[in-house]
């Protein structure tokens, strides 16, 4: 049981430093350094640690991360994303709970353009909240749909977290990105369906439909200019990956370039915005990927102490159906989501859970999507879901934190419903990647 002592020591040290408020990347570095010292031969193991810090991120499959972030920043800071929301409003004008549905629909489109839930949430909240308040939407129908729409950015490609999980878990990043499309759309459909039901059954929560009907031709005319850049960017990224024309890295670079070019063509780009876009992208990429620098050393530590293989043997030897173990890992991830951030969950979960799923005979792509959905729920899991804090910083102060948290619960339940659907119907995750042109 030496592995158990090692595992408890490693996780114990990590939890102590994380809870003390040491930055997540430093907590991992400290834990790994102590772990290397205790279990891997003292100071003589340190050169391997230094090398692994660099090697962990000098990986081609991780290079889309800064490009996807640059794409998202360009969309938000240039104002291109705002036009997309206006265009979607035209198409959903007769829908019950129109602006709530627009929040989810805009979240879905923005998710296909950027990989940042936090950025999407701040943008959607700042654009939609004033209008929703003016029209008399109940706060529950304002914050809930906005957070739910923003959460989709984690699932619908281009998603930064998909790239990181795929890269660390040795799942094909291209297939994994495409695999996120159907579950993301299923989730968005459930969200919009829920909004329609609530708006119909509780009309006091949303104002009545107040826009005059518009002809189809008029709708196309009004929305074409604003939706055109979105369609181009979606094709540049997802289309080129799906058709096998580009690798995810190449597609993400083309997407970033295309977004910069479109923002310039729409006269929404200047030197100040360009500078902000690039520097913000560098900052966000650095704070996300610096955590991943410890991934290789952390896996080495788990491997060297025998923890990874012992956990795998334990899981595969349990006298329960394998699907129970998968469900248990997902419940554990949902619980972790209440307290820690997504990249930490990836760092801890990927080296342990994905090998277990593979050893149990499950498709890593299918499990990867379940893993992704479980950690995405962490964005709206009380009490520390990150989107609560982002949206609270943007909405009027009279909407309390309790209301914000309460508004997220139905969407959290619908997210869990999506997880159950994918467990029951695996092709929801695996069908589309199977159609990809190699």
């Amino acid at each position, binding site marked *: 049981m030496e592995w158990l002592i090692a595992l408890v020591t490693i996780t114990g040290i990590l939890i102590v430093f*994380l*809870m003390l408020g*040491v*930055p*997540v990347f430093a907590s991992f570095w400290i834990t790994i350094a102590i772990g290397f010292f205790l279990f891997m031969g003292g100071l003589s193991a340190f050169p391997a640690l230094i090398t692994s810090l660099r090697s962990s*991120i000098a990986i081609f499959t991780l290079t889309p*991360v800064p490009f996807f972030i640059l794409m998202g920043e360009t969309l938000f800071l240039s104002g291109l994303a705002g036009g997309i929301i206006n265009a979607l409003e035209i198409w959903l004008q007769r829908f019950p709970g129109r602006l709530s549905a627009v929040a989810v629909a805009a979240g879905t489109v923005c998710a296909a353009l950027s990989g940042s839930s936090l950025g999407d949430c701040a943008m959607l909240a700042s654009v939609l909240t004033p209008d929703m308040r003016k029209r008399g939407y109940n706060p529950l129908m304002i914050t809930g749909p906005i957070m739910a729409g923003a959460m989709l950015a984690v699932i619908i490609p281009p998603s930064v977290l998909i790239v990181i999980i795929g890269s660390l878990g040795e799942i094909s990043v291209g297939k994994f990105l495409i695999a996120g499309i159907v579950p993301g759309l299923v989730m968005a459909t459930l969200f919009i369906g829920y909004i329609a039901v609530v708006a119909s059954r509780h009309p006091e929560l949303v104002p009545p439909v107040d826009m005059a009907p518009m002809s189809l031709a008029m709708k196309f005319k009004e929305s074409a200019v604003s939706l055109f850049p979105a369609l181009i960017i979606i094709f540049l990224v997802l289309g080129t990956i799906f058709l096998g024309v580009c690798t995810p*890295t190449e597609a993400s670079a083309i997407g970033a370039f295309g977004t910069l070019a479109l923002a310039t063509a729409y006269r929404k780009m200047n030197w100040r915005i360009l500078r902000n876009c690039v520097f913000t992208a560098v900052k966000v990429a650095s704070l996300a990927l610096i955590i991943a*620098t410890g991934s290789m050393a952390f896996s080495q530590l788990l491997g060297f102490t025998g923890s990874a293989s012992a956990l795998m043997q334990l899981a595969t030897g349990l006298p329960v159906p394998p699907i129970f173990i998968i469900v248990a890992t997902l419940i554990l991830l949902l619980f972790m989501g209440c307290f820690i951030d997504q990249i930490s969950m990836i760092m801890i979960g990927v080296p342990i859970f994905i090998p277990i799923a593979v050893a149990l005979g499950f498709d890593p792509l299918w499990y990867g999507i379940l893993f992704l959905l479980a950690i995405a729920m962490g964005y709206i899991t009380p009490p520390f879901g990150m989107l609560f804090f982002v949206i609270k910083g943007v909405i009027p102060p009279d909407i309390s934190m309790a209301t914000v948290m309460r508004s997220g619960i139905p969407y959290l339940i619908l997210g869990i419903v999506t997880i159950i659907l994918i467990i029951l119907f695996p092709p929801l995750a695996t069908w589309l990647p199977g159609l990809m042109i190699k």
Partner: protein
Amino acid sequence: MKPLQKVISVLNTIFNGSLLFTNGLSAFLLFFMVFVMVAHVIGRYFFTAPIPWAIEFSEYFLAIIVFMAAPMVLKEEGHVVIDVFTSRLKSRHKAVVTTFNYCIMSLMFLLITGWGIQVAYKHFLSGQTVWKTYQTPLWILGIFVPLACLLLLIQSVIYARRYWKIARQASSEDK
């Protein structure tokens, strides 16, 4: 201005300049990578002439971007932190815990800087290269880790001192 203050002010200017430079280098490399990858794809499909070093160097650039931007992110206190418990502490206690955190971080950055320089120097002496097409010397890639950690170390020491002052101030106000 006293001579010591003058020296500190000059060191401060040099340090801040270094942070701006490393952050600027990261931004430049990101922008450069976008154009290189686009040119690589266009070259491959339209001129049957891809850029042969694009893929290999994009991996190295990614590592450089991440490490070189990290000190500036620390200066802005922008790194991801789990403040589940620390957010509930009184300001004085929080300042004490933060001081402790930065001291521990300083120690760790010091270790990594020292070992990192040693590893890079060994690679330099042995002339080891990366086992890829361009055989880039390992020390060039390896030196960015201790370089970033040196800047992270200085920033951590600055913050440890600052938060210690805050803790002491809060303590004297309580009295």
